[in-house]
């Protein structure tokens, strides 16, 4: 699936989603948002949440614009080790798929930052790891004159 100017937001999400879902063991644990309802059982985890991408446009050349953006992938498990293992799998998959993403139009995909957190939910502890990936996308400028 190619990322184009008209489908930039949806296709960026779809590209990343397809990659993460293709990881072994991840097909049933990927969601668009973290559940609002009660999730205080170990059986409810792990969960991987892919958030909507953030974008901003800059001028690249006289005839082209460059889009720079980030997308956050959140990993929730009940142990710190499992969180790191799953986050590592996500990072590895995206790292190895850079050629695929470049073919689709997303260049310079890099892991910009990570963040960890932990909170008790009932009798269990939920560990969170956020992976922030940055990317760029160039497209022709829309002439308005």
């Amino acid at each position, binding site marked *: 699936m190619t990322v184009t100017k008209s489908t930039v937001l949806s296709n960026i999400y779809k590209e990343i989603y397809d990659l993460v879902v293709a990881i072994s063991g991840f097909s049933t644990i990927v969601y668009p948002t*973290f*559940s*609002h*309802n*009660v*999730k*205080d059982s170990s059986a409810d985890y792990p969960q991987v949440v892919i958030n909507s991408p*953030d974008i*901003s446009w*800059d001028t690249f050349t006289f005839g082209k614009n460059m889009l720079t953006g980030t997308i956050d992938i*959140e990993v929730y498990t009940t142990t710190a080790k499992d969180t790191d293992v799953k986050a590592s799998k996500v990072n590895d998959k995206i790292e190895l798929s850079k050629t695929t993403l470049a073919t689709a139009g997303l260049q310079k995909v890099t892991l*910009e*930052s990570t*963040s960890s*957190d932990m*909170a008790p*939910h009932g009798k269990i502890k*939920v560990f*969170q790891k*956020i992976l922030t990936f940055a990317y760029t996308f160039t497209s022709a400028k829309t002439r308005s004159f």
Partner: protein
Amino acid sequence: MVVVMRIGPGMKKVQRMLSKLPDSIKKEVGDKGTTEIVKRLQTMMKLRAPRGTGWLRRSIMIEKSKKTKSVVVNAFYGMAVEEGRNRMFVIPLAYFEQHQRMPDAPGQPFKPVKRWVTLTGRAQPFVAPSLIKIKQEIPKILERAVTRAIAGASK
């Protein structure tokens, strides 16, 4: 004594970078950096918010004005959850009306829920721990934003 300074080709680049730097810092730090901070704070508060119907968690929103960005807990009983309910605290009728007006349950009568976050009476802080945690992350977020601003101005 006469001191002669010659501006080489490198200095023109530096001059160009310095002229672009204020706008770049305003964009990367003032806009994107602060947005990242409030988004991270919202994520932390949502992770720590106790769950019953999920309404408290859903009510944690980001509000932006011209000069400020805020993370707001819109739930009427947010303070009662954060600081605990004492004997003098009376849950207002608006609390029940708010639940009845939930967008994903329009026109539904008030139903008993398996778990209410305010009935225990004890404090279940989720704002204060999030603020303590975000204070550790703010320098890292701003450092990344400043690095991006300098890189953007150098192009």
